[in-house]
């Protein structure tokens, strides 16, 4: 990770240095635009190089917030006004499928950065892998680039796909808290459905009931949680999650539709220690 960081700094300083020597003010960028981010990898074709960044410097099964820049290979200039779309694809032995993702947007208050979310519902393995295709337009010319990306398995369950009682295949993913605390945490969950193998739109107007438990300690719960409801701004489902101590928490969930029919999950009782729909947090 440290090496990656050093490489990232080196790359940045080289590019800055080369930019300066060009004396082309439009290609000059503030060096700290990616400060605090770790480089995941580069993806390039003949004309452009994409530099992918995230908080952790790697892609993981579940929710990923990805930031990237595009650099013109010839001029070493960063491209500030590209129109970009992306498509992650899982290549399995018998089939291919995509996963939920957001649109790519220009990062506000940054000159050279773009961002978006991808929710990988599975990790790569020895025979199955993900690649990412970026389709983009610079100065009305369209380009495309594809490369393999590494998606590691998550130690805890942060994403779950299942068939709802209405026959729809749903996918639920933990967005926040990324850094859980012994406190009342803001919890955020994304809910998607599989429309076809390549399309996973956000599902609106559902409700999510939540019951966090600690299975390692008598399956005790926590007080003053708020069930999740959909945000009008980002489409995520938000609630309040109380974690009374560190350790492993199972976040038992029930997904309900607008008419309060349970699509998936069961209430936690003495007889039923866990819901079939759950996410996990360990800290």
């Amino acid at each position, binding site marked *: 990770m440290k090496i990656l960081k050093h490489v990232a700094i080196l790359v940045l300083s080289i590019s800055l240095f080369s930019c300066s020597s060009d004396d082309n003010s439009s290609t000059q960028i503030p060096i700290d635009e990616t400060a605090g981010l770790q480089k995941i990898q580069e993806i390039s074709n003949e004309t452009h190089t994409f530099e992918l960044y995230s908080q952790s410097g790697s892609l993981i099964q579940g929710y990923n917030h990805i930031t990237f820049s595009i650099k013109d290979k010839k001029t070493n200039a960063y491209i500030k006004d590209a129109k970009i779309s992306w498509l992650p694809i899982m290549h399995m032995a018998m089939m291919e499928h995509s996963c939920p993702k957001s649109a790519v947007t220009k990062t506000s208050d940054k000159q050279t950065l773009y961002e978006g979310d991808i929710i990988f519902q599975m990790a790569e393995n020895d025979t199955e892998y993900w690649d990412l295709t970026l389709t983009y337009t610079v100065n009305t010319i369209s380009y495309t680039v594809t490369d393999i990306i590494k998606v590691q398995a998550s130690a805890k369950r942060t994403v779950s796909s299942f068939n709802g009682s209405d026959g729809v295949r749903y996918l639920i993913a933990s967005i926040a808290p990324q850094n859980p605390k*012994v406190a009342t945490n803001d919890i955020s969950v994304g809910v998607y459905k599989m429309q076809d193998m390549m399309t996973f739109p956000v599902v609106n107007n559902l409700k999510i009931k939540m019951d966090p438990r600690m299975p*390692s300690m008598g399956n*005790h719960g926590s007080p*003053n949680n708020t069930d999740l409801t959909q945000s009008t701004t980002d489409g995520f489902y938000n609630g309040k999650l109380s974690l009374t*101590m560190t*350790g492993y928490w199972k976040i038992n969930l029930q997904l309900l539709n607008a008419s309060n029919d349970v699509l998936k999950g069961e209430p936690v009782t003495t007889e039923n220690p866990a819901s079939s729909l759950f996410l996990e947090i360990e800290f």
Partner: protein
Amino acid sequence: MKNITAILLVIFSTVCWAQEKKNDTLAAVNLNEIIVIGKKTPLNLKQPKSLTSVEDYLMGSSKMNMIKRGAYAWEPTINNMSTERTVITIDGMRIFGACTDKMDPVTSYVEISNLSEATVASGQQASCHGATIGGSIDLKRNQYKHRKNGWNGSLSSGYESNNQQKIIGAALGYTDSTFFAHVDFMHRDAENYKAGNEKEINFSQFTKYNISANAGYFIDKKNVLETSIIYDKAVNVGYPALPMDVLLAEAKIISLSYKYIPDSAVISGWETKGYFNTITHKMDDTKRPAIPIHMDMPGWSDTYGFYSKIKGKHENHEFLADLNSFYNKAVAEMTMYPVDPTENLMFMYTWPDVRTLYNGLSLEDIITISPETILRISINLGFHSNTVANDFGLQSLRIFYPEMDATKNRSLKSLSGNYTKNTGKFEFGFGLAYAERAPSVSEGYGFYLYNSNDFYDYIGNPNLKNEKAVEGNFFFGYKNGRLTSKITASYFYISDYIIGKIDPGTLPMTIGASGIKIYDDINYAIIFNTDFNLEYSFLQNWNLKTQIAYSLGKDDQENNLPFISPLRYNAGIEFKKEKITAGIFASGNLAQNNFAKVYGQTKTPDYLIFNINAGYSFDCNQNKIKAQAGIENIFDKYYATFSDWNKIPRMGRNGFINFTYSFH
């Protein structure tokens, strides 16, 4: 010349002391009970078992009881009110236990070798060291400057058959005209005790070490500097009534005081003391079989404080002004170890680094209206502030109280007046008082504190109001040459009474717990106490003593309060002739039928036990040898009382022997 001055000085200070003492006793006869612990014991107050625990000495007061969780560290109650509603000080120093489960009351960090006496004050009758409702105890350190010049010391040893308790103590002191120093040591080591019918109570062992030192220096006639250190360490202490034991309970108690004894006829003494104490308490469940989950629960409590107390006399007024303050830091943690070792540890703060700052001014005036009548008036003003200094802890508490601030300030007031009349034969008095107290750290900021008596997890409540009590008390006494009798009663009407209330919507944390209780103010509660003491001496060498006490506690729904004593009684006949003492004592309780069902208690049956003892002491030149022996619970009765946590049975038959050799 120097020697003469020194001797004069010693005499002078002794006279001063005696005079002060006399004044104290005058008030004390009327109001406070003084329990003598040290060696300068008047014959009639002599303990038949002089090496017994501090707690056992305190139980001599009819106002006091002990909540027992095992053989060690009993929790004192005054007027049936426990730690939160009382103030226990050591020479005026505030000390706070570091255990969230009250396994380490202040009294557990001292030894009888450290103390000369304890002043037990009911209600507001001597509340100069902080805000209290039920009463206060000041444990007084030994006073060495009044000893004879030269070396003095003692060796003591004891054994108790029931739990093979071995007691060893030693003290050595030196007093000079300008200087005195003293060091004492005491060690107790006990195995499991056996309740009646030879039933061994597992996890009731304990080991305790206590070492203390005092030194003083007379700067001149009027100025004395004194320093005192107590180091107390208990290890491997079993608490059979609780699900956990104690690995370590350690206290370091340090003070430096300066006394000024002016010539002035008005001011009789002025003492200023700075102090510091630090307590470490570590619980231990590793020896218990079949625990659902292993956990560590350490706690720390540090207190810094000072007081400046001035005493004086003018015409018929005897007054006292005491400015005192303390700053306490209380932290307790809980770490639970999951069965799966790859899982992260479960950690929380159960006391989230709560800082308590108290500044108080206490004023008292004892007015001798006539030789027979005395009026005592006292007033206390205090500023009390709590701050949660740990952000982790504050965020945890905000799960329950999203709006809570880190700091909460309170002002605490108390006011009391007592009128007493003593005609020699008859004495009577009555008093009225108003008092307030702030919630304790657990009541205000505790986080999932499991109570193994009612099986609930307790959550503190930072929004609690001050608890307020109106108290009325009276006493009536009669004495003649042979007979001394006294009846006393007190009634407390406590509004915004703090007690745990079930929160039905919240799940408990502890495995097996019934639910959650959140500390709350209930409208009011009442506590009534009355006791009757009678002493009668007959046939020259015989003395009969009886004591009967009754208490009642109710909440605003007429429910009984927990840990309230039923009718309890004791009686004894003592024989004293020259160097020989002997006695037989009986003590018992009636059944507690007014038990606190709503607060998770059950009925306790009645009991009656008998003790016998004998002692022999003789002087040999400057040396004094004292031997005592006896049998407690002669008939090996199996019993538990209302104040035994989870009905843990008390000790069965126990033979003891105490031996003390002292010289000076």
